[in-house]
């Protein structure tokens, strides 16, 4: 009778394939059975290696430590912006299509001031939302820490800026066509900054990051967007809506 070798016994212990016939042999061979029991005791004794206990709130401790070191872009930003961004362009197209369709359909029936007001407010809300998303991306870039290892990954902001650019163009053209110069002007300034971000390398050096920040500051875009946002809120709150 050929006895089992150690490798077969190890494979059998761990339930690996390749240990076929081992069980039958162990049933019939006392010598191999003894060897296997010794191996079992050795490997079972390895389980006695103690692992230090962790505290009850260990998971929370790990999360606190990890979440502060995760790549600079915050989960909050990703959560608030990424999903909506994926459909932002389509939304912009729909809102603008509805805006112009309203114009074309209402004109022959002598558009009332109320109808016009409703459409403008819908557009205003959409633009306000678009500006808020843009602001979040630019704030992330402005507040970015110093690049580690010489470069900073801004690929997320780039993708976001590319998506926002598409809607920005549509909103700007619509605002110009409808004579809303204030909105068109701010969207034009924003477009320049978004273009810069979208066309930057996906990993920027400290100098490139500084240039981007300078561009954001020079355009004063964050202040303009904030001011515009406040006006949108006021306009939304007003019963008939005024001029921005």
């Amino acid at each position, binding site marked *: 009778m050929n006895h089992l070798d150690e490798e077969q016994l190890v494979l059998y212990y761990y339930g690996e394939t390749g240990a076929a016939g081992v069980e039958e042999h162990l049933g019939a061979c006392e010598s191999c059975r003894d060897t296997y029991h*010794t191996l079992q005791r050795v*490997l079972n004794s390895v389980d006695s290696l103690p692992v230090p206990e*962790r505290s009850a709130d260990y998971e929370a401790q790990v999360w606190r430590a990890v979440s502060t070191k995760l790549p600079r872009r915050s989960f909050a930003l990703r959560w608030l912006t990424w999903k909506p961004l994926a459909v932002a362009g389509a939304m912009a197209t729909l809102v603008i299509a509805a805006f112009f369709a309203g114009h074309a359909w209402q004109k022959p029936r002598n558009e009332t001031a109320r109808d016009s007001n409703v459409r403008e407010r819908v557009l205003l809300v959409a633009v306000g939302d678009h500006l808020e998303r843009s602001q979040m991306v630019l704030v992330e870039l402005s507040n970015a820490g110093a690049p580690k290892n010489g470069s900073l990954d801004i690929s997320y902001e780039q993708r976001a800026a590319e998506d926002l650019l598409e809607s920005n163009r549509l909103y700007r053209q619509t605002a110009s066509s409808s004579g809303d110069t204030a909105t068109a002007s701010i969207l034009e300034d924003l477009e320049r900054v978004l273009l810069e971000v979208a066309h930057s390398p996906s990993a920027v050096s400290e100098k490139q990051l500084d240039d981007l920040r300078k561009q954001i500051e020079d355009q004063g875009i964050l202040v303009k967007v904030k001011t515009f946002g406040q006006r949108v809120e006021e306009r939304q709150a007003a019963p008939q809506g005024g001029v921005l």
Partner: protein
Amino acid sequence: MEDSDSVAVARAKQGDGDAYRILVDRHSRGVFRLAFRMTGNEQDSEDVVQETFMRAYKQLHRYEARSSFGTWLYRIAANYSLDLVRKKKRHGEIGLQESATEEEMGEVVHAVASSDPGPERLLFSGAVQKQVAATLNELSQQERTAFVLRHFEGQSIEEISSALGLSNNAAKHSIFRAVQKLRRALEPLVAL
């Protein structure tokens, strides 16, 4: 667990921070245990836990669910532990683990021979634990990683070979060598 891991991973890939936190909550203790068995050092194990979750987060888009999330995560942890231990060995920061002394081994033999020779008693013996730790420390890093993944994490030889970039045969032989060394060191204590 794995099914719900898949859901959490899918949500985390879309940027859902709460979903990634769920994964951290579920796996941080397991990753710590693996890291400790790999490094034998508490502080290093904490570093491994944090670094593993950071690396996993950065590489989440590459995870394709061919293996379970846990297996994929533990692979990251095992590889980082390997790197860490190698680096420390290069810098001479890891000394030889002290083996059980002859006196301690004699006490075990005496205790077992004189009263109850049940295996439970041996499992909790400090000398056995010390000898296990010392022997694990004497294994090559490849042997130790392959053994820890097989013995403690229940990973298949195929998964281990993929984790360590080895052929199935090489992974299998790393485990065999580790078991051989453990058997030689521990048999005098347990084969009574």
